[in-house]
């Protein structure tokens, strides 16, 4: 931290540039692509379909099977062994548990929902970006959910609490705390901590993640609406069903009230 600014010139409460697209894979019922700073993440959802092997079935609700994987070319370190490594297994588990809290699983007893998160390029905070992408993919597949969760990491550099750490900050910070939140109720669905933080610092970190959430949630909702609005736009003059009224339509991706907001597509570095 130099003069209150971080390595890439951001202020402590700034997010990196985020771009979300929904429904980009033709063969998957639900999919999403997220660019979060230098992270590039693809998420796809299949199902619900009959859970196989049969011993994995739950007769009362659907089971979620999640696979988080980093592509061999995604980072400078090696990710090229076949099958998931210890880290991927852990992240798959925590991602699954986030969505077990929001998907209405009781509608599909005995079935499985398969969730894939592929990291194409990584620059710190991929599990947070992966959860954000997977939430959009699930919503775009039509699986009923009570909310669209988002996730962001918060960390500590020196005495400062900072939002959305990149790879370098993540590796050399004093603490790194990925948090997933269900914004409708403000429920925390994931909170992991690598490093040390005081009780007071953790509550500040959770609050910071909550404040950034309004912006991320809006990007998610916009991404989900975009394909429909594009078609509506085409027939705007003739159509009655179209975008929400200007008062409700979240067009502007920058939010002056939101300190973490950055213009979409603007590189944070």
């Amino acid at each position: 931290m130099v003069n209150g600014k971080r390595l890439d010139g951001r202020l402590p409460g700034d997010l990196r540039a985020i771009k979300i697209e929904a429904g980009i894979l033709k063969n998957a019922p639900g999919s999403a692509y997220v660019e979060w700073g230098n992270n590039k993440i693809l998420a796809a959802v299949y199902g619900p379909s009959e859970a196989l092997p049969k011993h994995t079935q739950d007769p009362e609700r659907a089971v979620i099977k999640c696979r988080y994987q980093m592509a061999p070319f995604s980072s400078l370190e090696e990710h090229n062994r076949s099958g998931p490594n210890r880290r991927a297994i852990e992240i798959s588990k925590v991602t699954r548990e986030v969505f077990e809290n929001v998907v209405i699983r009781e509608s599909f007893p005995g079935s499985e929902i398969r969730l894939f998160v592929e990291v194409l390029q990584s620059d710190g905070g991929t599990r947070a970006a992966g959860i954000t992408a997977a939430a959009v993919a699930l919503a775009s597949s039509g699986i009923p959910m009570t909310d669209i969760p988002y996730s962001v990491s918060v960390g500590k550099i020196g005495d400062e609490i900072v939002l959305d750490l990149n790879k370098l900050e993540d590796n050399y910070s004093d603490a790194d705390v990925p948090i997933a939140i269900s914004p409708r109720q403000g429920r925390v669905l994931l909170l992991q901590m690598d490093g040390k933080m005081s009780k007071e610092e953790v509550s500040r970190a959770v609050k910071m993640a909550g404040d950034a959430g309004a912006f991320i949630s809006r990007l998610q909702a916009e991404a989900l609406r975009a394909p429909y609005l594009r078609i509506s736009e085409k027939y705007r003059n003739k159509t009655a069903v179209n975008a929400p009224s200007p008062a409700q339509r979240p067009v502007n991706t920058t939010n002056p009230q939101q300190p973490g907001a950055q213009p979409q597509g603007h590189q944070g570095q």
Partner: protein
Amino acid sequence: MMQRIVVPGEKLEPKPLRIDEAFIDNGSTYSTIMSIYDDEKKVLVPLEGLWYPREGETVVGVVQEDKFNVLIVDLDSPYRGLIFAKDVSGDLAAGDIIEATVKELDKTKTVILGRPRKLAGGKILYVKPTRIARLLGKANSMIRQITTATQTSVTVGMNGLVWLHGGRMDLCTEAIIMIQQEAHTSGLTDRVAALLQLGAR
């Protein structure tokens, strides 16, 4: 008319209302899926959603397995179709495309089908289940318009499988894809009519 596109978890009404595909929490009503909400009529029209079987519905499926006294049917959904051998008239084997009626739903949501009819030849189109209502149209007006213009015989399964056979299948497919993509816009009937007219030349 106030219609807006809502996403899962978005508040529909600040009071508890019984609306399909919505849930009530803390005295307010929220959507569970991507849909269009009509403020006046208080209805959700799903944009993305899954098929929930109801008794009496027509479905299209592919016979997956022939097990002595029961046929297992793939309905392209979380639900598995079953046909008891006593309900089968004629020969049905694995791989056959069939049309059937939902006779009964059991607790584990296995769908018991009745009155199967083999659909020979033709092809299957996968349509989003939420678009089937639009594809049929009011009193089947839309699908009748398509079949009349293309001379294709079309069987629409509520589960999202549509079987086409004969006539101008290419034009019929094009019209169905158009409906799938533009179901949420109005004036669609006219555009489909224009497409069919143009294609018929």
